[in-house]
């Protein structure tokens, strides 16, 4: 069953066409990679799905319900969580409080004890034990990315959208991260849509890959199909 489906998504910024007629879908319980050269419109697509701004035209359905143009917080409450490519922690709040924001909007009647416990748990899942009362601005880049994921998890998502979470990691850390992301799917039952530049990780972790180029779907298919496709190689490497 498809968890999320976009049809004919088009977005213009002034005169610039960021996306034109993009169709895509993500099956329940899969990990789908979203790749493409810089400026292909990947993050724009994320923003539209997550409700940061509405598309110029086209529709987005989540669990069969039309969510096009809903405000971000409503989409989040339906079970779509996202991280930001450039992390946006609440710098002057502690890590627990950062994550707790996600918890209390998912469970509005959670008491302080409940949300603290849940937040600590999410921090543990991403490996930020010991940083509970650290103010988020004191974290390093990698920790901030982990915090983003912890916050996203705290909103109780069905679909998790990751935007370049591997930047700045060494190869061992990338391996750990891949395992971690697969575990999110296998153990927590999440569906994952993942923008990533590290092709090796996409190859290893995903079941399906969508390739965007200049605001259009170039192709989609299994990772093997994608890397061997001449159009993709052409798009990445140019003439």
């Amino acid at each position, binding site marked *: 069953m498809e968890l999320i489906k976009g049809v004919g998504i088009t977005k213009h910024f002034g005169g610039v066409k960021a996306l034109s007629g993009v169709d895509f879908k993500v099956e329940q319980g899969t990990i789908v990679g979203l790749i493409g050269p810089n400026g292909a419109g990947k993050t724009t697509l994320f923003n539209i799905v997550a*409700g*940061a701004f509405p598309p110029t035209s086209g529709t987005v359905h989540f669990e069969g319900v039309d969510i096009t143009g809903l405000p971000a917080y409503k989409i989040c409450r339906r079970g779509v969580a996202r991280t930001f490519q450039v992390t946006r*922690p609440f710098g002057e*709040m502690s890590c627990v409080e950062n994550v707790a*924001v*996600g918890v209390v*909007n998912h469970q509005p009647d959670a008491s302080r004890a409940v949300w603290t416990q849940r937040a600590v748990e999410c921090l543990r899942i991403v490996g930020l034990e010991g940083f509970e009362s650290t103010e988020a601005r004191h974290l390093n880049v990698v920790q901030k990315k982990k915090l983003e994921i912890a916050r996203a998890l705290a909103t109780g998502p069905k679909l998790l959208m990751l935007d370049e979470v591997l930047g700045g990691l060494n190869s061992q850390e990338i391996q750990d991260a891949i395992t971690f992301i697969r575990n999110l799917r296998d153990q927590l039952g999440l569906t994952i849509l993942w923008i990533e530049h590290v092709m090796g990780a996409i190859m290893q972790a995903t079941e399906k890959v969508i390739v965007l180029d200049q605001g259009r779907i170039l192709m989609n298919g299994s990772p093997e199909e994608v890397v061997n496709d001449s159009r993709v190689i052409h798009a990445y490497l140019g003439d």
Partner: protein
Amino acid sequence: MTISLGESRLKSTPKILLCLAGLAVFALLPWTMGVYNQHVLIVCLFYTMMAASWNLLAGYTGQVSFGHAAFAGIGAYVSGILVVKAGLNPWGGVVIGTLCAAAFGFLVGLLCLRMGGIYLSLTTLGFSEILHIVINNEYEITRGTMGLQVPGLIENYSKIAYFYIFLAGALITLAVVYRLVHSNAGLNFRAVQNDERAASALGVDVVRTRLLAFTVSSALAGMAGALYGHYMLLITPHLPSLDQQFLVLSMTVIGGLGSFVGPVIGAFSLEILSEYIRAWGEYHVLVFGLVALFVARFAPKGIVGIYKAWRGKYRAATA
């Protein structure tokens, strides 16, 4: 603009007892002093209400409203006019004044919160100007710059009694602010202040959160204004003026924007300071402004921030 809730939260019993003891001492204070100092205390409590409620808005949700004094004015004038023209009981006037301020706060909030940020500041500024002109022009109802003379809250004028009324008002204000920022909504307030987009991506309804803060803050300002009017026995357009707004803003900034005790410290220290430097005549506002400017520039977290930095150093040194 830092906030540190985790630390200042009253967790331990000794801390609570200490607070209660301090409060008890403070409550007995007016009996030991002359009439004038009692008056100064009452004015301090009024500014505590104003600064604490403005801080809820500016310190905790990052919305700088220039209409806070205007909302106090709405509370005062609504109450005053109802009491004078319709013969309402002053206490009833205070309640209705507070509700009206809340309603106006809600409407103004609704109007400009979608755009947020600077728009809110400028629209509240415009609102405050409109109110000012209307009060001046509707002379028959408001008595314009002459001021509306209103009856007091109690039959026999007594500074001590007013002191306790204002103390109760200040405690109510502080309790509301405390409850709110330590509730789940408080997390949302701070999330919105830190990063709106990230907050909404985590399910925070940014507009609703701001509207809540704005309405509550306006209501508290309205209550403070209404009480003040019935204490001064005269309500004038100076209450909803930019001068008052400047005082409230300076007190909050100097005390510590976004900290719970900051506005209280700011209100007391600036009001008492201004009592002293009034002897300087025309220069006192200048001195006042310079102090505020220096603190705002070099210690943006105010007195509370200075204290925390000092305590942090002290702890680091002793550890």
